[in-house]
């Protein structure tokens, strides 16, 4: 600590991060309580849906997919930046990722867990959800592998497995570090979770190889999972869905929303856990640059959609996009356009990029905008179905839609809050990797604590 140049030493990192695992204060319990309360709302709503039927939600012919699928895509999208930051940036050797990747990765796992619930809630006969799963059965029936919904299942399942394994694996050295500082039940928990990690050279050698391997495995998933999700729509013939642009468009949107969500989560965590030294403005600036990049791709995709609709000369395509922009749901479309395509342009300004309050506000707007993007694609395309002029959509979400959506936020934040209080939210080992190694000062005791 005597070093005047920087307070951030190996020891500081360990202690700072271990401190985040200390006894929680009132604020933490308030937040956790709020999350559990939201979850309770969702559970009660779900019980109602199970008892009475999906009719409680706002569905209206021909809008047969709505808020639940919107939330599904939203949460899958959120999940994407985690793997991008932890795996792709790892392979690209971007040092700055070390401080933020753990949070992003945890967010990924919990977001996939949240997303995975929606297809189960949204189907008409939830109690037969297992018919969607390919397993040998006495009926000799397999699911239809031609259906994009089955592809979805594989994509999401793979993604959840790989990202969970990746998260847990990355945690092992850190848990071992906090294990050594913990007492009581935590000690037991960490001992168990650290699977006997001692930090020997041999262990590190295996660990880093394994980590690299997993990162390589996870990298294509970043691109494939949301591409597959986008094919739920692109494979259908609904004008507004049936477009070849969908896979890259969705992947960019997913990373965009994920980065925004990372910012939304990191700003308060940094403040509450006093991690200012570890997560610096520089990190946020990098994240917002990522936002700027992906946001621009998304904006370009919007332009492409409208241009192609016009350029194709296809009257149904034109009608669908006219309806989108100027039909009864114009407000959703313009919310999406402003939040996703225009507002983030502010990030070109360095002053804004480095102002955490501004960043936090913008990230929330991007989250809202990205939710509306899915709402517009799903609900508005179905409502404005131009093949059949005799469709008469009167779709409006009801309490059941909002209840399940609130529950999903509760579910996500509950897991997230439990995670950051019980496991190191910033990677101890990897942050140390990018620090300058401690100088061997010939003093008493040294600085290798």
């Amino acid at each position, binding site marked *: 600590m005597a070093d005047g140049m920087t307070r951030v030493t190996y020891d500081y990192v360990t202690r700072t991060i271990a401190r985040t695992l200390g006894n929680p204060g009132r604020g933490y319990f308030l937040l956790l309580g709020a999350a559990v309360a939201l979850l309770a709302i969702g559970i009660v709503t779900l019980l109602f849906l*199970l*008892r*009475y*039927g*999906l*009719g409680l939600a*706002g*569905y*209206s*012919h*021909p*809008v*047969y*997919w709505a808020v639940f699928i919107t939330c599904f895509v939203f949460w899958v999208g959120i999940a994407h930046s985690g793997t991008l930051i932890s795996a792709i940036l790892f392979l690209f050797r971007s040092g700055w990722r070390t401080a933020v990747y753990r949070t992003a990765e945890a967010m990924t796992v919990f977001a996939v867990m949240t997303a995975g619930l929606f*297809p189960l809630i*949204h*189907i*008409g*006969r*939830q*109690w*037969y*959800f297992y*018919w*969607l799963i390919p397993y040998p059965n006495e009926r000799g*029936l397999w*699911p*239809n592998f*031609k*259906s*994009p*919904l*089955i592809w979805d299942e594989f994509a999401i399942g793979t993604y959840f497995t790989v990202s969970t394994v990746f998260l847990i694996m990355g945690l092992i050295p850190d848990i071992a570090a906090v294990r050594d500082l913990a007492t009581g039940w935590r000690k037991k928990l960490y001992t168990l979770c650290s699977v006997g990690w001692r930090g020997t050279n041999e262990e590190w050698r295996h660990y880093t190889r394994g980590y690299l391997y997993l990162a390589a495995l996870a990298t294509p998933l970043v691109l494939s999972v949301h591409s597959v999700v986008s094919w*739920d729509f692109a*494979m*259908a*013939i*609904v004008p507004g869905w049936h477009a070849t642009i969908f896979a890259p468009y969705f992947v960019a949107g997913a990373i965009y929303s994920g980065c925004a969500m990372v910012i939304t989560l990191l700003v308060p965590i940094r403040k509450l856990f006093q991690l200012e030294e570890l997560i610096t403005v520089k990190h946020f600036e990098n994240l917002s640059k990522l936002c700027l990049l992906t946001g621009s791709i998304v904006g370009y995709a919007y332009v492409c959609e409208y241009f192609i609709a016009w350029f194709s000369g296809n*009257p*149904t395509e034109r*009608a669908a996009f006219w*309806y989108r922009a100027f039909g009864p749901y114009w407000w959703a479309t313009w919310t999406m356009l402003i939040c996703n395509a225009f507002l983030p342009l502010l990030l070109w300004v360095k002053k804004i990029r480095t102002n955490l309050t501004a960043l936090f506000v913008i990230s929330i707007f991007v989250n809202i905008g990205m939710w509306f993007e899915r709402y517009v694609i799903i609900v508005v395309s*179905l409502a404005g*179905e*131009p*093949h*059949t*002029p*005799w*469709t*008469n*959509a*009167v*779709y409006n979400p009801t309490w059941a839609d909002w209840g399940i959506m609130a529950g999903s936020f509760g579910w996500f934040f509950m897991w997230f809050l439990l995670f950051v209080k019980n496991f190191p939210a910033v990677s101890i080992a990897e942050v140390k990797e990018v620090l300058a190694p401690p100088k061997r000062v010939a003093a008493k005791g040294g600085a290798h604590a």
Partner: protein
Amino acid sequence: MTDGPNSIDRRRFLKVLGVTGAGAAAISACGIGPEPTEKLIPYLIPPEDQIPGTATYYASTCRECAAGCGIHVRVREGRAVKIEGNPESPINSGRLCARGQAAPQGVYNPDRVTGPMVRNTAGGFDSITWDDAISRVQGKLTAARGHGIVFLTGADASSFGDLVDDWMRQVGGRRVSYEAFGFDALRAGNRLAFGTAAVPSYDFANAKYVLSFGADFLDTWLSPVSFQNGFSRAHAFDGSRDGSMAKFVFVGPRMSLTGMNADEWVAALPGTEGVLALAMAQVIVSRRLAAVPTDAGRLAALLADHTPAKVAAITGLDEKLIVRLATEFAAAKGGLAVAGGMAAQYANGADIVAAVNILNYVAGAVGKLVKFGPDLAVGETGTFSDFARLTADMAGGRVALLFVHGTNPAHSLPGAFTQGLAKVGYKVSFASFMDETAAAADLILPDLHPLEQWNDSRPRAGIYALQQPTMQPVFPETRQSGDVVLKIMGRPGTYRDHLQGRWRELQRRFGAGKSFEQFWMDALQHGGVYGDAPARPVRLAEGASRIAPAPAAPTGGDQTVVVFPHPVLHDGRGANKPWLQELPDPVSKIAWHGWVEVHPETAKRWDLATGDFLLLKSAFGAVKAPVWITASVRPDVLAVPTGHGHAAYGRYAKDRSFNAFELLGADANAYGGRTFAVGATATKTGEHRKIVTTEGSARERGEGSVETLTLARAKSLGAADHPFHHEETPEYAKESVEWWGERQFEQAELGNYAGEQPRWGLAVDLSKCTGCSACVTACYAENNLATVGEELMMRGREMSWLRLERYWLTDAEGHPQGAVNSPMMCQQCGNAPCEPVCPVYAAYHTPDGLNGQVYNRCVGTRYCSNNCPYKVRYFNWYNYAERGGEWEAWPEPLSMLLNPDVTVRERGVMEKCTFCVQRIRGAQNKARLEDRNVRDGEIVPACAQSCPSEAIVFGDLHDRNSEVYKLAGNPRGYHVLAGLNTKPAVTYLARVVSNG
């Protein structure tokens, strides 16, 4: 029994059963999961005439209106489940309307009166025994003798009516009959013109030109099914027929279902229909356009008064238009003009009818297309003035005992009749339902439903239709009114004996050489005896030259309001049947509620939006009605349907919407009828209501949904022309698409519809379809479609597998000139977008080319519906079959009408039109048992069976001799959204527009 671990002994079996049973019970108690399996209990002593799983058909007669269509009632396991037209009946030729289809919802209605009841001191009703009830009536009869005894019936031309006449003569009373929409003007007009009050039959089928002055002959006028069948024969485009397609012109202030099928809509000022007809007659006579009968010379003065120039000013029409219409009418050499509906309900209605009669007379239609002799029975019923006299008698306390059967005047005459009822000494109702009149009665003696009883009717001179019980009464404590009357009269025997006694007379005329038993059985099997009545020539009456059809402006307000009968609820009698309530009105597409039609210009002037309430106040009463803005009504006219606004009449009808009858007066007008056009003031109340409409938004972009052709173009088409043929595959992709298709066929053992299997298909001729919606209700009846109610319909949850899309046709100025109606059901695509997206194969392709939907396999992802470009898939958002559930569609005993051949779908599954696959499989099984192939025309889906205009044809597209194959290759044929390469099995034949 071995004791090995795998053996199941009784104890273990019971244990497993108990545990899983408890688990299942716990789950299903929460309402989650599949319904527990119900026990099937076999007959202890099986009835001899019933084979479980096999339907029995009984011939009978429909009593939902006075037309008297012959029906076949399909009975399964002792319960009537479906009604279809009787092909032998000369009235309806095997066809039926929506109201007839909905009759089972009357017999199983959950709001039926289940037994005799007497009013108690508290104002409620107490159940009593039949003996008690009959002795009460007998007691009252003795007391009331000489103080006024009246038996009020509906239009009842039957042996029951004759029995009542007998009885009333015996007790010194009188019988009065009442129909809310009577045909007094028609009868008075015929008397004026021809000196006879008979209602002739009209030969639409042989007309070359049809001109309707307000007569809604396709929906409510006289005998709609019969007329629609005839009309579609005349009006449909048939390339092989000389001069095909009789032009149809509709004159009236609003476009009704009939009006929207016209090729031209002449929106004359209300009440001027008569002078218009005279002006046309004048043109025909003065220009010698037809062989005018010599006695028409008497009309010279009258006609001279009605030159087109003079009439143009009165009617608000162009003089040239009048001359053109007259010329076309005469030149067609087979023009038929009919007057009725709205035109017969003005104060000058009788003169209008007489004027139209004159037009028919001078053009030579009388005797050829207008046939006196085979007269319609409605001509024999009482008149409104008789009824008005009864109302006056009642108000004056001159009626001591009133019987009411088969009519509900307390609803259609809400003021006068109800007030009069209060002064009647004792009121006895024979109503099956607690309608407004029954609710005011002192004693209710519930009748059987027509499907449960013996009776007959004489819909047309020469035709004697029989009605037989098709099942045991649903409620054992209800009794046939004929039996009750006989009992009260103290006569021996049952009503059936009485009926047979009367049919013995018919046996002498029709059953020569047959024993009575033989004659009776024959008549029962065929639904009656169908004879011909000789035509009777008529000549112009003395007074024909003195008619005065000039309109008189209605008084009481600055706004003309016309009250018209609802096409399916009619005068309100259909309002207690959810099928009819949920059926969108064919014109407005509004369901479950009434409306007032306002022209867009008027709406703009008054700053109204659809759903805003208008307070309409006439001299007689006031109603509040939500606005429906439409160009199908004149700007200076407001139009309101009847049917709603019941104060009683069961859960589906009560307290729903408004009662348009409240606007009308109760007095008979000059010709003895009731006036249905009133002057009123209209004020915006500021209230607003969402009204359920299934109409799509005004977006005009759905191209390819309906196609039209001008008559000239349609005539010029050769057999090889295909103006709507879409080249679905671009040239460069042809080879690869074909290659792909071949591989598909090779690989797919199932779904190979190119092979030996049939390919089921439909052809729908839009030139025939009138939009009457009989097919929709037939589909509800056949396929156990749930009704969801107004609230869910507002949220787009209706389950109608078959919907009628109504697109207005407009002239050059944008004014609507009729409409094209397109029945839209599952297109059973050969290359179906719904199938590949289903993750569990619930949507799959059957070998005979159907898009199968396995309800039991469906988990409800709803992806299939999203991917269906026709949007014809419907989802079960709730459990509509849940006993006592909030959305229960079939409350006991309505559930008895469910078709046992069709699954009742569970919550959470998708459903859609199956082409009535149960009928296909039934016919295939039958053919297999008889070791033959299915014959063309043997399979008839419910929609095609019912269609009064025979617009829908079903069959095998692989059979080159089938009717549907020929129609599918018709030059007018097209596929909806053919550009999507879905290869639908439904071919639509373009509507031919004759004014092009």
